């Protein structure tokens, strides 16, 4: 039971991360290769707050805000550089975060932060993570239907044209980065308290790529597709535990095959098979 509970909790955290990235990259068109940095920022901020005695809900909120505020900073960078340049800048943000944390004794450096107070039990974390994931899915669906979602679409497709019809491109980019990175911060805060232990390596470039893979495998831009992608990629290592030795081989091959044969991801597959466009 505990096993299924912990897998479900991780799946929910990954849904939160992937939905957040999808808001930035799928809805607003700003490719980010550094999403794990915001996961880490949330985790570190919440952990430090909790260790310092801040109550759990406030610590989580702190993680959300710190990640969101740094997200806004990166949003400003997105005003200056575009497309592939932006992708590499966000990747750089990830390396910069990690490189800085690794060297700061007050952040635990390589030893990480341990003994983070844990106010909930396994069921509590599962409920919290799943609840937060559901709330984010609902938010994502709402954003898509609202005028914000439409404006994101305009920015994603042609930001110069969007400007000329009065859309505040800068404002929307920053809003997308804020919501998306704050969501990652939320996942980080929950993760830190659940495992009571965080180390820099958890938030590395591979993690960013994994989150991106969830979004792309699910079908970039499609909320339901991204949820499916996040759950699938969480379960996959678990399903493939019996092939320990070939796990990464199969994982890499799957990424490749999905992109090769269904570039729209799972959502694209469903659209072709059933003619239904997933929200």
């Amino acid at each position, binding site marked *: 039971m505990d096993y299924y509970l912990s897998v479900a909790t991780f799946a929910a955290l990954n849904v939160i991360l992937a939905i957040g990235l999808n808001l930035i990259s799928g809805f607003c068109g700003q490719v980010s290769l550094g999403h794990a940095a915001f996961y880490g920022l949330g985790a570190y901020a919440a952990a430090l707050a909790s260790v310092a005695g801040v109550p759990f809900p406030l610590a989580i909120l702190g993680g959300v805000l710190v990640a969101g505020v740094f997200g806004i900073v990166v949003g400003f960078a997105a005003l200056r550089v575009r497309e592939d340049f932006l992708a590499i800048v966000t990747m750089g943000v990830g390396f910069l975060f990690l490189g800085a944390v690794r060297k700061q004794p007050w952040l635990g450096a390589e030893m990480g932060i341990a003994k983070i107070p844990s106010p909930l039990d396994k069921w509590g974390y599962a409920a919290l993570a799943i609840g937060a994931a559901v709330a984010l899915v609902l938010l994502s669906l*709402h*954003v898509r*239907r*609202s*005028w*914000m979602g*439409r*404006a994101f*679409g*305009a920015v994603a*497709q*042609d930001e*110069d*044209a*969007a*400007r*000329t*019809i*009065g*859309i*505040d*491109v*800068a*404002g*929307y980019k*920053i*809003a997308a980065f804020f919501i998306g990175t704050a969501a990652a911060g939320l996942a980080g805060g929950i993760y830190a308290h659940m495992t009571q232990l965080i180390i820099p390596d958890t938030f590395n470039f591979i993690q960013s790529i994994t989150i991106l893979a969830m979004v792309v495998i699910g079908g970039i831009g499609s909320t339901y597709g991204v949820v499916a992608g996040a759950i699938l990629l969480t379960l996959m290592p678990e399903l493939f535990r019996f092939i320990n030795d070939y796990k990464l081989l199969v994982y890499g091959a799957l990424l490749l095959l999905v992109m090769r044969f269904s570039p729209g991801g799972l959502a694209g597959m469903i659209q072709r098979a059933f003619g239904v466009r997933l929200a």
Partner: protein
Amino acid sequence: MMLLAGERLSIAFGGVHAVEDVSLAVAEGELVGLIGPNGAGKTTLLRLLTGILAPDSGRVLFEGRDITRMPIHRRAQLGFALTHQIVRPFRDMTLAENVMMAAAGGVTARPWRALAKVDARGARERAMALLARLGIDDAADKLARNVPLGYLKRMQAARALALEPRLLLLDEPLAGLNAAEATRFADLIVELNAGGITILLVEHNLGEVTRIARRLLVLHNGSLLAEGEPRAVMARQDVRDAYLGEEAHA
């Protein structure tokens, strides 16, 4: 008071003066044509007026208010609309959705307000009315990537009109259209102007522009060469030379 004025605008790229010391003014209700041979600086001047480029020196005034450093989307919100020389539709949206994006200016101006609002019926109605006015409502629900250029040019005009602009800047709206299409589109421009929208038109199609504009500005080598009533301007020797020079070089 002039609706739009450029005062002594200059900009240089890598030491080359693309626009040098140009002043111009457009009064409320006017239909002004801006012409000049290739490389004269027309598009650069238009970009200075719309805010895509910031001038090295000089000012841009809208109703006497200095808007030189104002971001583009804020100008659009003031009633300052433009169409692009190369059409820039949102390709994965339908024509109606393209126009709706502009029609909902009040809602989309602020991201957080946009998040609170889902209802699109009002915007849809206005968009459909504009598409009908431009005669392309039959393709309203087709994706922009799937419709021909003539439709996109009109859609772009509809999108600009959806902003309820007071000033419309048109960058070569007739380019790429055949003669019949161009004439029809030019008539539409006159009609819009008659409806109360001030228009500044950058155009290469001299026949149409002299036909519909009431005043012409001629740009040459980044400076204003001539200005006045179309037929009189076109009769001037220096204007003819400027255009002939272009041909001689070409």
